[in-house]
């Protein structure tokens, strides 16, 4: 459902993403791993349109999304979770989630006439709040939450944002082990529902537990691809991580 071919992005002399190609399938969790600075987050920024590619193509659902605007890509069905907490701190948790629920926020006249969120919208966010376990602080300002709580709200927001593909940048970084397990189960559940998930993660245990397919990047290139078992025994990967 997502095909990336010959993607390139240079920052000055640094080849952050150098001729990267891979594919993501529905019903699968794909993990993008690699040492720090290997270009994983740059790939995410190119997919979600935050950065413009120098060359190469990104096809999503048979539609070319290379260098489209960020909000257009989002509205086509790519929902993203950032590495650092990025909630709207001046809004409540509930408002943060409501904003993600549909793409009608900017239709001015329609919103003036029919300006309220529907009962269905509220049902949806209450359901996700229960699943993720954030119902107890729905009316708090997002800026007042702890790191872990913010993370959960962000995950809830990424899930509730209408999408076909979920791209998660380090979903469990800095999250306690118990929560880690819950997030793992949640992502597996989403996969069973038929969602495609692409994630970046440094926690190898977590990654190899959850991923169906693993793509390894180093110095802007894809150096290996395969199922977790194959990756564990791959020499290139060991070299990239351990040096030598």
């Amino acid at each position, binding site marked *: 459902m997502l095909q990336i071919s010959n993607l390139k992005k240079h920052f000055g002399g640094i080849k952050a993403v150098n001729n990267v190609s891979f594919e993501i399938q529905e019903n699968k969790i794909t993990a993008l791993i690699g040492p720090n600075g290997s270009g994983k987050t740059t790939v995410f920024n190119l997919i*979600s349109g*935050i950065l413009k590619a120098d060359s190469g193509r990104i096809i999503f659902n048979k539609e070319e999304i290379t260098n489209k*605007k*960020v*909000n257009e890509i*989002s*509205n086509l069905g790519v*929902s*993203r979770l*950032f590495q*650092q907490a*990025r*909630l*709207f*701190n*001046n*809004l409540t948790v509930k*408002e943060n989630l*409501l*904003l*993600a629920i549909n*793409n*009608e*926020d*900017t*239709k*001015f006249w329609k*919103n*003036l006439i029919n*300006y*309220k*969120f529907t009962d269905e919208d509220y049902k949806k966010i209450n359901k996700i709040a229960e699943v993720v376990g954030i119902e107890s602080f729905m009316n708090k300002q997002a*800026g007042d939450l702890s790191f872990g709580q913010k993370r959960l709200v962000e995950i809830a*927001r990424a899930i509730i*944002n*209408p999408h076909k593909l979920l791209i998660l940048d380090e979903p469990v970084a800095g999250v306690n082990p118990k929560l880690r397990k819950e997030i793992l189960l949640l992502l597996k559940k989403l996969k069973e529902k038929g969602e495609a998930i692409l994630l970046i993660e440094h926690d190898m245990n977590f990654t190899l537990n959850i991923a169906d397919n693993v793509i390894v990047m180093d110095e802007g290139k894809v150096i290996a691809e395969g199922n977790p078992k194959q990756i564990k025994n791959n020499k290139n990967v060991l070299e990239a991580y351990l040096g030598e």
Partner: protein
Amino acid sequence: MSIITQLLINGLIAGAIYALVASGFSLIYSVNKFVHFAHGATIAFSAYALYFLFSITGLNFWLSAILAVTFGALIGLGMNLIVYKELRKRKASSVILLIASFALLILLESLVLLYFGADVKTIGYINVAKGIEIFGAIITPLQIMIILVSLVLLVLLFLFMKKTKIGKAMRAVSDNKNVAEILGINSEKIYNWTFIIGSAIAGIAGVLIALEQNLEPTMGTGLIIKGFTAAIIGGIGSVPGAILGAFLLGFAENFGIWYLPSGYKDAIAFVLLFLFLLFRPNGILGIKKGGDK
């Protein structure tokens, strides 16, 4: 007694006008993240539009007023689309946008000067009415109208920002543009709407000021400085803060001239501006910067 009530009422009238200027200005600032000084020119343009339509062309007053406000909204939108949007596309910083807004302010004021001349104009729709006496103070019906219109508008703006989806989307873009886009909110569209709404409020301010005071080509500069001061006092980026700051400024100016000659009104505003910039740059309701990332 009567002096106090009179000063209180004068402060309220000035505050109401400043609040209209400051709320639109602050709305645009909070979402677009740059200082739109040309907002003053929007007010002057609307005031002169009313003068042109009503006093020169002889159109019906209410129709003229509505057209003048619409004109203000379109001027604001036009500035965003023609100048600011193009600069943003070229990755201009907020300082460049600020300088561009000064240029627009001067340009638009000069256009008014060119067309209407430098002499002071009056609308003359409302005959100088006898004021109503309240506790020994005098207030004219128009002044009551100014206070009421301003309060109603500010409440409507507050409800709009808090309750509607688009108000929430505006607060979202104001908070973090990148995340808003990731959620599918078109930030350019939101920028347009803040300019339309903020400038329409400026247009209403222009119409009310045109009725209460005289018109001069440079009227916008004086007003936007007051609006800016009010926004700083209240906390830049916070619309309720700007409104609070506007009324405080109105009261400070009018109670200040109890002791000082009336020519010092502007000086009072500037002293307040300096004091706040020095000792409380975040204003009364402002959000501290760099606290939470």
